[in-house]
Each structure stands twice: as C-alpha cells, then as structure tokens.
C-alpha cells in the first residue's frame, strides 16, 4: 500500500475522471488536475469564486465547476487549456448543476426550482424545462445516457417527464400516484423507473420506459416509509430501506417482495460473522492480527492502532435511541449499496450507527456485520470487485472483502479525520477526503494480496 503525500483540499471536492486518468481537486477557487499515476499537477485552473461543486464530463474532456453563491458555472477543457466557458444564471440563481450524459450539455437548476436550463456546448441553443420538483433525486439519467427522467410538480400533482437526451425532446409525460414524490431512479438496464413517495407514506411505483405503470408496492401504512432505494447492478433486485429498520427486496419479474432483511440490535445466529473493531495500544499485539501479511507492509511504516476481532454471538450492537418526536429521526436504513458483482448488499441502520450489515444476495441472508468504534460516515464498494471501503471520521480506513476485513491507519501526523472517500474506477487506488485542507492518496496495489488471506 502506498500513501501519497497530503494535498490541500476544500469542501471535500475531489473526483477521479471517468476514464481514470486524472484526478480533479479544489482548493478554494483553484481547480487542480493531477495525473493519477504520479500525482503531478497537469493543469491548474482558476475560477471566479470558491468552487462549490465539480463534475467531470462523461468523456473526461471537460470539467465543470459550479459556484452557486454567484450563480456561475465555469467549464474547463483538458485538451485545450486556454478554452473557457462561463455560464451565468444571473438573477435567477443557481442551486444545482450537472452534466448531461453526452458531456456536451449542462443542466442548471435555478433557485426556487423555477426551471432547469439546458446549456449546450455544441450549439447556441438553450432549452428550458419548467416546473422541476424540489427534491433530492429529482433528475435521473439512464445508464446508457439516452434518457432522462425528471420529477415535476404542477398543480399540486407529481409528474414524470421523460426526455431524450440527444435532442432534449419530451418523450413521455405522465402523472404519478404519489402524495409528494421524493425520488426517482432508473434501473441500470434503463427500462424501469422506480419512483418513491415521501417518507410519510410507504409507496414505491415502477414505471416502464414508455410510461406504463408496472407495479406499485407498499409494505405498510400509517408510519414513516421509505428512506433509501438502490437497484442491483443487474437490475434484478430493488432494495428499499425504510424507517422500520428493514430492507425489502423486490424482484424484477413480478415486482413482489422476495424477502426482507431485519436489522436487529442483537445478532444471535452463529453462522453470522461479527467483526468488531478493537482499540489496540501496543504494537506487539497488532502483529498477531487477523492479517499476518499485512503487518509486514503496514507495521513497518506505522503501528496500527485498531484491529478487528471476531465476536462471539450473540452480540448486542450499540444502539442509539432515536428522538421520535422530531423531524427526520435517526432511525431506519439510511444507506444501502449493492456490490458491483451483485453478490453483496451493504446496509446501515441509522439508529445503530456503528454497524454495517453485509448481506449475501445469492443466499438472501445476512453474511457479515462490522461493528466500528465510531459512527460510519460513508461506505463505498470497489467498482471492480466485492470490496467495501468504510470511513468513520477517524484516521483510519476500513476495508472489507469476503476474505476478511482490515483496518488501515493513514500514516499522517495530527488529526486526520477521513470524512469521505472515493474509489478510482480501476479499484486500484482511493482518495481519502477530510474536512481540512488535506487530501491523501492511497494507491492500493493491483494485487491486494493481503486481502486474499484467511
């Protein structure tokens, strides 16, 4: 494992280019493009204000920097460093900006969700889409980039508009049977659109690309409903995490529930492996870690200060009693993600913030539970293999694979709190982001051999 030197970073803005060649990061109003291999600075762009959002175009040729405060988007080209483009939304303001899948159009959402402006880099044409709905997952592109689904709200009713991305023509427009739509998401195969209602009501609707309602699913009534939704990469399963601390899996044939995963505080099944992170002070003990080969590399550089123990079941996990009389209670499944090979599902129950559940999708059973010392901030699957990276806001990164799990100390002096991380598309390296002006690189060797132990 190689750790790069630390780079400055502001507001956690750091992204690998889709082709995996570059890394973009922001320091205040500067955008720095580095080569992924040697981390040398390739380009340095200066924006007009502090950058609040960056995004690579799909072909990695352009990068947009949004400055919401000033209502400006600046686009830079990697091929032509002197090329520039500035989009000013003027008094309409700007709250969100994103690329269209073709990498030649930019969709800007104005303040108060008045409209979405589609700017083209190829032609002078500008398109407007009115009545976008003010919700978190209001825009969704199909994976092949052909279609865009947009949640709309007009006359107190929810609508979905399907656009053809190539010429921004409206393909379908239909109303949904939702009280207050809160999110939409395409299945990876681009044929089914999942639409879910506000958390006040458990309701998920599935629409075909041509606007037909395929199915409606509601698990219960009178209680807080859906909190998170995730499609499996094969489009075969739709996992729905809800406030009742359960994940329900729908199948793609009948759109009925196959199974539901509960997240109890006590794990009693002896077949489930529970990894518990333990604080370790002495170096000698770290050498008797679960990963003997890791010490050769890791402990020669630094002393690992925590390790995983396999707990004896039954295990009672740390539980935080949610305040139920407040809005957005910390309860229920807030995060869930399928592994890229479709084999595992990682979930996090917000009222057991230190634990990650990993489910075996083939057996539809709980496989592993990881209990961390601190609350899980983020987890992300390696885009190439079933390997999960976790950060908990301390100076460690945790990796899990079916072979086992390991905690890796970031070899930095001082307070280095990993708040976020992103994988390189090859799965070989990973960027660790902190709130400070720090940024760390970790090149994970392609043969991550210590992970194959045990």
């Amino acid at each position, binding site marked *: 494992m190689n750790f790069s030197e630390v780079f400055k970073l502001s507001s956690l803005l750091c992204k690998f280019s889709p082709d995996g060649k570059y890394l973009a990061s922001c320091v205040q109003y500067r955008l720095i493009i580095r080569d992924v291999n040697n981390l040398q600075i390739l380009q340095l762009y200066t924006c007009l204000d502090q950058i609040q959002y960056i995004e690579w175009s799909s072909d990695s040729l352009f990068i947009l920097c949004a400055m919401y405060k000033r209502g400006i988007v600046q686009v830079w080209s990697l091929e032509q460093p002197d090329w520039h483009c500035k989009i*000013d939304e003027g008094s309409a303001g700007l709250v969100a900006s994103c690329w269209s899948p073709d990498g030649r159009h930019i969709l800007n959402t104005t303040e108060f969700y008045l409209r979405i402006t589609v700017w083209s880099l190829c032609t002078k044409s500008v398109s407007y889409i009115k009545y976008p709905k003010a919700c978190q997952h209001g825009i969704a592109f199909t994976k092949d980039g052909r279609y865009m689904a947009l949640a709309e709200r007009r006359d107190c009713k929810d609508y979905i508009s399907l656009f053809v991305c190539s010429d921004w023509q409206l393909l379908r427009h239909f109303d949904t049977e939702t009280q207050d739509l809160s999110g939409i998401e395409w299945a990876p*195969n681009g044929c089914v659109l999942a639409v879910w209602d506000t958390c006040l009501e458990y309701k998920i609707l599935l629409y075909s*690309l041509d606007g037909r309602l395929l199915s409606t699913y509601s698990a219960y009534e009178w209680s807080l409903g859906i909190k998170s939704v995730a499609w499996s990469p094969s489009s075969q399963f739709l996992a729905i995490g809800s406030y009742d601390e359960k994940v329900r899996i729908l199948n793609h044939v009948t759109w009925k529930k196959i199974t539901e995963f509960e997240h109890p505080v006590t794990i009693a099944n002896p077949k489930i492996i529970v990894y518990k992170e333990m604080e370790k002070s002495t170096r000698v003990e770290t050498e008797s870690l679960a990963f003997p080969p890791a010490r050769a590399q890791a402990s020669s550089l630094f002393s690992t200060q925590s390790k995983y123990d396999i707990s004896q079941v039954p295990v009672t996990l740390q539980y935080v009693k949610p305040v139920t009389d407040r809005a957005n209670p910390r309860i229920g499944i807030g995060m869930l993600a399928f592994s890229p090979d479709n084999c595992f599902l990682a979930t996090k129950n917000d009222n057991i913030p230190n634990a990650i559940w990993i489910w075996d999708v083939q057996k539809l059973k709980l496989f592993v539970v990881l209990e961390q010392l601190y609350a899980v901030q983020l987890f992300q699957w390696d885009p190439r293999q079933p390997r999960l990276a976790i950060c908990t806001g301390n100076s460690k990164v945790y990796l899990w694979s079916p072979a086992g799990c390991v905690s890796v100390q970031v070899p930095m002096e001082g307070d280095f709190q990993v708040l976020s991380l992103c994988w390189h598309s090859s799965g070989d390296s990973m960027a660790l982001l902190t709130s400070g002006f720090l940024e760390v690189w970790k090149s994970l060797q392609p043969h991550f051999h210590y992970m194959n132990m045990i």
Partner: protein
Amino acid sequence: MGDWKTITVPALSSASKIAYQNTSEKKMSPSSLNMQQVLCSPLPSYKSMHSFFSAFCTEENVEQSISYLNRELTTLGFPSLYSECKDKELNVVSVLNCMNELLVLQRKNLRAQEEVEIQHLKLGSDMDHLQNCYAKVKEQLEASRREIVGLQERDRQQQCKNRNLHQLLKNEKDEVQKLQNIIASRATQYNHDMKRKEREYNKLKERLHQLVMNKKDKKIAMDVLNYVGRVDGKRGAWKTGKTEARNEEEMYKVLLGGYEQRQKQLLVENAELKKVLQQMKKEMISLLPPQKQKPKERAEDGIGPVLSDMEEDAVELNKENMWELSCETVREQLTNSIRKQWRMLKNHVEKLDNQVSRAHSGALNGSDVISREDHELETEKLELEIQQCKEMIKTQQQLLQQQLMSPCDDDDTSVLLQDCYLLEERERLQEEWKLFREQKKNFERERRSFTEAAIRLGLERKAFEEDRGAWLKQQFLSMTSDHKNSEHVKTPSAYSGSSDPDNQLMNFRSRQKKPHCLPSVHPSEDLCQTIQHIPPNSNSSVVLNKTTEDSKPKQWKGLNKAETE
C-alpha cells in the same frame, strides 16, 4: 356402633344361657331357691323391695294380700292362686308357678332393660358424634356461606370495575375516534393549506419567472470561446415530427431490447432446466428397467410393452426436438413421462423400503443381525476402553498435579522431580554422567600409571638415597673444611636436578586429588547416580501409571474375553 353390638350380642346370649341354665336348675331342683336369691341379690331394688314386701304383707292381712295378689295376677293373665275346687284355698303349686314365671319375667325385663340401656348408651354416643358432625358441618356451612358472600362481593366489585373499564374503554374509543377525526380533519386541512400554499408558491414562482426571465437579463448568458463538436461528430438535427417518431421508435427498440434480453435469459434458464430434467429422466430410466419389467410382466403382459414403446417414442421425440420445440404437446409428453417414471421410482423406493423393513423385522436371527450385535458389542467395548483411558489420563493428571503441588523439602528431590518431567534434561544429565564416568575411568587409568611410576620412582629414589648416602659417606671421609662450603653449594643443585620426579609426583598427587574432589565440586554426578537409583521411587506416579497401564489392559483383555464369550 357395630363393634358395640358384635361384642354385646354374644355376651347377652351367654348371659341368657346362664339364666336359662339357672332356670333349668331351678326347675330341676327347687331347693336351689336360695341360690336364686343370691343371684338376685345384686338387684338394685332388692332392699327396697324387701322393705316393700315386708310392708305389704303382715300377719294380719295375709288373706287380703293373697286375694289382692290373686286379683292382680289374674288380671295380668296368670292362673288363679286359689285352687279351683276348694274355695279360698291357696294353691301352692300355682303360686309357685306364678312366682317362677314372675321371676322369669323379671329377669327378662332386667335383661331387656340392660339391653335398652346399652342401646341408649350407644345411641347417646351416636348422638354425640352426630352432634359433633352437625356442629362441624354447620361451621362449614357458615364458612362457605361467608365465602359465598365474599365471592359475591368480589364478583360485584369486579363487575363494577368491569363496568368502569368498559366505560373507560368506550371513552377511550370515543377519544380515539375523536382524535382520528381531528387527525383526518387536520390532514385535510393541512393538505388544503398545502395546496393553497403551493398554488401561491407556484404563482409567486410564475411571477418570479416572468420577472427574472422576461427582463432579458443580460447576465443570463453563456460565454464560450468556441463551440465544441458533438461526441458523435454529427451536427444537431432540427426538431421535427420525424425526430419525434424516431425517438419513439428508439424507445421501443430499447424496451424491446430489454425484453428480448430477458427472454433470452429465460430461454437459457429454461434450456438449462430442461437439460436437468432430461438428465434426471435418463437417470431414472437407467435406474428403473430391471425393476420396471418384472411387475409389468407379472401384472399385465399385454399392455406393458406397448407402454414402454410409447415411452421410448416419447424419449426419442424429446431427444430430437427438445431444444427446438417447446410446444405444448412435447411439453405434455415430457411432463407425463417424467411423472410416470417418477411414480415408478417412488413405487420402487417404497418397495425397497418395504423390503428393508421386512428384512429387518423378519430376519432377526439372520447373519446381519448378528453382525450388528457384534458391532454394538464392539462399540460398547470401545466405549468402555475410551472410558478407562480417560480415567487413566485423569488419574495421571491428578498425580502429576499432586506431585507438582506437593512442596519439596530438599532441592535434590525437587530437581529430581523436575527431571522426572523433563525427559530432555534427564537425558542430558545421563549423557553428562556418562561423560563423567569416562573421565573417571581415564583418571583411574592415569592414576594407575602414576602409581606405577611412583613405585618406580620410589625404588629409584631409594637407590639414589643409597648412592647419596654412600657418596656423603665418601665425602665425609675425604672432606676438608674448605671443601665443605663448595660442596654445600653444589648439593642443592644436585637436589634440584634430582627433585624433578618428586615434583612430578606432587603434581600427580594434586591431580590425583581432583577425581576425589569431583563429586563435591560437581554434585550433578552424584545426582546422576541418585537419579539412576532414585527414579523408580521418585517417579512413583509414572511407575504407578505403568503398573496401572500394565494391569489395566489385562483387565480389559479379561473383560473382552468375557464379553466375547
């Protein structure tokens, strides 16, 4: 009560017998009247009667009393006291008879009275008992009455509570209803408000939109150096009806593509399942024939081959067309044949099961059963052995622990004890000991050679002494005073020259001492010896174990023999 009766009845009868005897005696010998009087004497009213008798009849009123008695007796049905023939003459015989009868009567009455008294007593006790019972029952009754009252009270209270609860429930229900209504009304209100707000919001948005967008905001603009080409290199097309149609078409293509893919997946899955089915079928067929033909030949000779023919046809057909044709006829045939064969297989398995059970129940004395018994015996034996081994191990452990735990008084024994457990050390010590032994041997050899040398030296010295004596003598004899000094100087040199062997001897002695010292210097050698001697004693546990080991297998052998026999 019953007891009383059974006891009294024979007593009574005996008494009556006695009485009867008495009467017969009386009858036979009237002279025994005195005795009768004696018998009667215990009567309680004897004295009073006597006095009454004495008062009743005096000398003066004999006649009157007789006549009175006569009257009385006749009224009671006795024969007249007077003789019939002679008027006013006392018939002694009848008087006596009367007396006797009276006496008999009296006795009878007495007995009856006694009986009645006993009965009375019995009844009295009965009465007491019954009264007791009665009292008890009455108490019980009272208690149960009280209980009933208590229960009734409680019941009443419960009912009261129940009623209250019902009331509460009803109230709660009402409350819930009310709240639900409130919630519903609130919800509608909220929705209404929301809608209103949203409309307002929309209006504002619209207004804002107009304001912001229609102002021809100069700021809303894109400042771009030059437009870049499209990813596909084509130029943007005009939006026309054609493009719309094309988009539709493409969308349906995508959808169709999706469905086709899914269908392909399903086909693959189907094919695989069919393959599995086919294989299963084949395996079934290969399993069945020998079993299948027999019952068919036995049961229905005519239909059997036809059926199998049909099956074969089906199989061939399936083989040929399975992958291409999934039409219903083929499917039906396939499922039917599979079903048939499955039935056969089931029957076969059932038959086998039956056979097994029959064999199991029927052939109790068969060889199989015996082998099984043997097997069981063997397992029992083995288990026993395991048990014994375990016990042995336990005892060994205990002994070991005891030895380890017991405080060792002298260091040697502790060392020895430790040695007992540390084979390595023991071996090492033994080796050392061997080495020492060899050394000792060498020393012995050396010593011998040295002694020999010493003897030789002694002899030489003697000769030399003699020589010197002679020489001194000579010297003395031929000595002058001047010569003397010079000679004195010489002698020591001569001494020194000759004293070498002596020195050697000294050296030898000092060396010779060493082996003697060795035991004291190296107690380990001693130890070795002691080890050699002691182990059997000190390693008592080991020895014990050995003996137990030695003895136990024998026992087992004996046991085994006994068992096998």
